[in-house]
């Protein structure tokens, strides 16, 4: 084949799907019967064998029980198989993706878009949505991050979930998630992207509610699913509008038509604004932005590797990817860009402040994720899509590491998540401590680490870009300072100081197995060096990352310049800023981050009683922040209650009264009429004979009468 390894691109999503099938079979035929047997339940859905199986299990109950307890010491064979298959397919997908990307990189920059159409999927009139995959610099970054980080988290999960009875079910969901996520990022059209979009939403629901016996986990899963529906509704409407405008949903065709249609006046600014706002509504749902961010903190009910994979590194960044993918459309709608930037900045600072007061280690990280996603949207909103994707990548490294590290802490403490009951863990779990410390430095933006380069790129662009403003910079820099503060608060509370653990828990503290510490170490290395591909020119770097993504965003930027030329700012405005200003702002933001770290050190290491004093001095403020600004309660009152009472009204007035009344009314009329008519057929033969006679007499009389009259 002419395209060489690129023709195997379809394998990247197909391999996880293979894992789903294999692990699914194991979960269904090996694990489920075993779990049902342990729970003393009969095998449901059996045909004739139902009674037999039930009888057998109850008869040999004692024997079977002895068997399973004996089997606890030795890992059952099927679990070993799952532990091999699940990370294996993802690793293979990563290798294929890497080879594909290398082959793509060998091409000249303008030829780096490879589309592989597998088969037509939906065909109706002029509408065609194929199942096809597109590899270009943007989807290449996403595919590598998803498969790479995904593989590490799969390996980690083998260790983390080793005590979990539903081991195979977990990996089925995880592999299914990888399949959906890769479909999302590799799709060559909006409709297939939507399939992946819904697929990851489904897997997110399944994995948040993985421990569904727990009420809060089941509720959190539902909350995530329902909140995401609001966003998905915006996304699908946007896809309809795109098809209505462009007559196609495939990326290459849509973006090729953008300049043409905007010149000819078909694609007005209003239309572009409508499309992009709806797309962004979808992004706020999936990527947990104001006003739809509320599901993400609750999603921490799921297993910790899930939080790392889905709710930090990959799925929640899908919104950023989608906005970056549609950059050509967004640049035509300056109003939407402003909305994106403002929402991003507001989310960044808003959720960062909530993170200050949280005591659950995973919830701190959850609010941190929301905040960092806000940064990415801020970058997209000011037109710095490259910076947004860059931060997406580095964030995937250090936030996955932070979550996995917190998972390792929780694992070591036998499930304890409250930071008030930790402390002094540094000497018990040194590898976890060290790797998490690296990630914390990275997220705080300490120069040299990955987070510094990406975050500073965003800060600089939000200041200097033609869409940016100093106000956005101030907000983002303040959020960066708060981020540094709460992250170091987390580290100090968890790893430093006196131990506040329960004595019972303290006895069992242990460092995690190699399957968990190895991914931590690899991610720690990536958190350090991951940013080196995007060192800005002002620091003597070559910003490889920007050059790599340039073919995707360059034509877009040209179109954006055209659109912006009408505005007050020229696109070249960015070039007028001197390098000294850039360096100065960089130093300032590092200074702010250091202040945050210093404050955390002062409050949680030097004067450990101080935080409580502060909370006591401003009890109202503390209360409001501790309760997450009562947003959940406000939504409950303003939205949920309204919908519930509205639904009750509709149920009682429309459904019960109107619809049921109509149907039952017609039935009543027919029944009453039947009741009358029924009496004609009394079953008395004489009666029938008499009616026969009467009819005959009447007819005869009628005919005779008329013949006489005429």
């Amino acid at each position, binding site marked *: 084949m002419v395209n060489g390894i690129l023709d195997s691109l379809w394998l990247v999503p197909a391999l996880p799907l293979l894992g789903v099938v294999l692990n699914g079979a194991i979960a269904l035929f090996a694990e489920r019967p075993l779990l049902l047997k342990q729970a003393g339940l009969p095998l449901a859905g059996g045909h004739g064998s139902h009674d037999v199986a039930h009888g057998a299990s109850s008869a040999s109950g004692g024997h079977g029980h002895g068997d399973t307890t004996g089997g606890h010491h030795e890992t059952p064979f099927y679990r070993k198989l799952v532990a091999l298959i699940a990370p294996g397919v993802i690793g293979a997908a990563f290798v294929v993706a890497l080879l594909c990307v290398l082959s793509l990189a060998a091409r000249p920059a303008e030829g780096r878009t490879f589309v592989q159409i597998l088969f037509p999927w939906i065909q109706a009139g002029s509408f065609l949505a194929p199942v096809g995959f597109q590899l270009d610099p943007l989807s290449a970054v996403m595919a590598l991050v998803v498969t790479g980080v995904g593989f590490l988290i799969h390996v980690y999960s083998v260790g983390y979930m080793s005590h979990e009875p539903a081991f195979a079910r977990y990996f089925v969901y995880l592999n299914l998630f990888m399949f959906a996520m890769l479909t999302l990022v590799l799709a060559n059209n909006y409709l297939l992207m939507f399939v992946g979009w819904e697929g990851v939403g489904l897997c997110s629901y399944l994995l948040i509610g993985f421990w569904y016996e727990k009420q809060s986990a089941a509720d959190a899963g539902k909350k995530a699913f329902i909140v995401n529906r609001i966003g998905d509704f915006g996304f699908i409407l946007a896809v309809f509008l795109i098809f209505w405008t462009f007559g196609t949903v495939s990326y290459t065709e849509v973006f090729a038509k953008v300049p043409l249609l905007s010149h000819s006046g078909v694609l007005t600014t209003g239309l572009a604004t409508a499309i992009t706002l709806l797309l962004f509504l979808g992004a706020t749902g999936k990527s947990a932005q104001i006003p739809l961010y509320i599901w993400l903190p609750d999603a921490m009910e799921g297993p910790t590797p899930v939080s790392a994979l889905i709710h930090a590194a990959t799925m929640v960044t899908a919104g950023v990817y989608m906005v970056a993918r549609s950059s050509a459309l967004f640049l035509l709608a300056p109003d939407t860009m402003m909305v994106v930037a403002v929402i991003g900045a507001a989310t960044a600072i808003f959720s960062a402040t909530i993170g200050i007061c949280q005591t659950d280690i995973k919830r701190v990280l959850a609010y941190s994720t929301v905040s960092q996603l806000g940064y990415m949207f801020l970058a997209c909103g000011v037109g710095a899509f490259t910076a947004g994707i860059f931060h997406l990548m580095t964030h995937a490294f250090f936030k996955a590491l932070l979550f996995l590290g917190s998972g390792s802490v929780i694992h070591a403490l036998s499930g304890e998540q409250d930071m008030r009951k930790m402390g002094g863990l540094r000497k018990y779990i040194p590898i976890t401590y060290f790797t998490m410390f690296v990630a914390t430095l990275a997220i705080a933006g300490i120069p040299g680490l990955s987070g510094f380069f990406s975050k500073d790129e965003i800060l600089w662009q939000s200041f200097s870009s033609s869409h940016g403003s100093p106000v956005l910079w101030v907000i983002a820099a303040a959020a960066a300072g708060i981020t540094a503060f709460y992250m170091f608060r987390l580290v100090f509370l968890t790893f430093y100081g006196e131990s506040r653990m329960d004595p019972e828990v303290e006895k069992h503290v242990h460092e995690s197995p190699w399957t968990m510490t190895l991914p931590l170490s690899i991610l720690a290395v990536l958190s350090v060096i991951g940013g080196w591909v995007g060192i800005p020119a002002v620091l003597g770097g070559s910003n490889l990352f920007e050059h790599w993504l340039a073919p995707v965003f360059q034509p877009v930027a040209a179109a954006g310049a055209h659109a912006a030329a009408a505005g007050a700012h020229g696109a070249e405005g960015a070039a007028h800023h001197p390098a000294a200003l850039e360096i100065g702002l960089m130093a300032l933001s590092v200074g702010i981050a250091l202040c945050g770290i210093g404050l955390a050190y002062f409050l949680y290491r030097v004067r450990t009683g101080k935080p409580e004093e502060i909370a006591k001095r401003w009890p109202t403020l503390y209360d409001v922040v501790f309760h997450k600004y009562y947003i959940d309660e406000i939504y409950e009152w303003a939205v949920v209650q309204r919908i519930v009472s509205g639904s009750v009204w509709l149920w009682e007035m429309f459904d019960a009264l109107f619809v049921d009344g109509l149907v039952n009314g017609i039935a009543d009329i027919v029944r009453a009429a039947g009741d009358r008519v*029924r009496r004609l*057929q*009394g*079953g*008395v*033969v*004489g009666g*029938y*004979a*008499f009616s026969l*006679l009467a009819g005959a007499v009447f007819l005869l009389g009628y005919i005779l009468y008329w013949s006489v009259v005429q």
Partner: protein
Amino acid sequence: MVEPSAYLLLSAILFGIGVVGVVARKNVLIILMSVELMLNGVNVAFVSAGSYLGDATGGVFAFMVMTVAAAEAAVGLALLIALYRLKETIDITELRILKW
């Protein structure tokens, strides 16, 4: 020569008696007999009309009706016996199963 209207009057009286018998009596056997009476009333009308008009068709129809009446009587009595074996009654007011 008797007036043709007298024959027709006889025919009408026979038919009327038959009708009243069918409608008013309870015994199925009597009803069947009343049906025969109605048929015979019609026969009288056929024969007298044929004779009056000098046309053989009336007589032919009368034979036709007799044949049908014979067949009907046979079938009717057979049904009646079957019914009696089943219900042990031939009172028409007791036989009320012919309803929805």
